[in-house]
């Protein structure tokens, strides 16, 4: 019985696979290639990530930068309330946020350059960046 069931399931999966693969048309390949090209381009856009890690936070059209090696906490106000982040032992996490889903809180700690946490409802974007070599004051940058 079980053998029969698994047998019919295998045939089902096989027909599904066959019909899917046989039906791939020329334009499909072109569109998938185009998608891959855009992904590669988007990877290029990130640029080099080197140097001392900085924690940059964008919220409400402003940007803040913190040193990842210095322990601190900061609170940001957004459309739905307050979002509090904590920098401790060279990692960042969202301690609390007034948003509904708390995706940002459950994202946990991040510690590597290029990692990020987002709270979409409260418009807070936390990113660990390599330091920018153009100099300038990183403590109070706005764009």
């Amino acid at each position: 019985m079980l053998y029969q069931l698994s047998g019919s399931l295998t045939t089902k999966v096989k027909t599904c696979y066959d019909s899917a693969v046989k039906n791939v048309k020329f334009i499909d390949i072109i569109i998938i290639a185009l998608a891959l090209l855009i992904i590669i381009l988007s990877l290029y856009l990130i640029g080099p990530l080197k140097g001392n890690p900085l924690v940059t936070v964008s919220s409400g059209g402003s940007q803040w930068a913190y040193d990842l090696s210095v322990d601190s906490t900061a609170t940001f106000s957004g459309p739905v309330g307050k979002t509090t982040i904590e920098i401790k032992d060279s990692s960042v996490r969202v301690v609390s946020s007034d948003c509904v889903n708390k995706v940002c809180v459950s994202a946990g700690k991040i510690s590597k350059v290029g990692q990020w946490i987002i709270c979409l409802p409260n418009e807070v974007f936390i990113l660990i960046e390599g330091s920018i070599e153009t100099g300038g004051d990183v403590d109070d940058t706005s764009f």
Partner: protein
Amino acid sequence: MTPLSENRINFVALLGAIALFLSTIEYMIPKPLPFMRIGLANLPLLIALALLDNKEYILLSFLKFFGQALISGTLFSYVGLFSLVGTFSSALVMKIIYSLFKKRVSFIGVSVGGALSSNIAQLELARHLLFGSTVRFIAPPFLIVGLITSMVLGIFANSFTLSSLWYKNHLAERSDG
């Protein structure tokens, strides 16, 4: 503009209801990011390409957006705006790809094209509205997940439309009338 017959409205409503159901399923699946979706709710939009005319298709896109927003409770928020932009840009691009290439493209290509346009439109919106140039860090994982899920969805749509009698009947009905 002739109003839609009751029969057609019922058919669009059925597809809209499937989208609503799939939105619910999708809402139950945990995701690493609020806007990293599998896009299950796009399945009716994909399958309906050959079954609906332009007016009915726009109606279905609206039903899909509305259902998704109701399920996730994001109708009047930024997230709802993202969903609106994503839904309509992918619907537009899927319709264009399908009517441009007809038999030379399968649902895989249509689905990937739709997901790509939806993702790019949402990233562009995020760049202008929320995160500025930092959005480039979200782009690669966002696009990669979109490519994979849309390919899986396209493969499913291919095998479904080949084996489904329901689909064949509606396709025949459409070419008759």
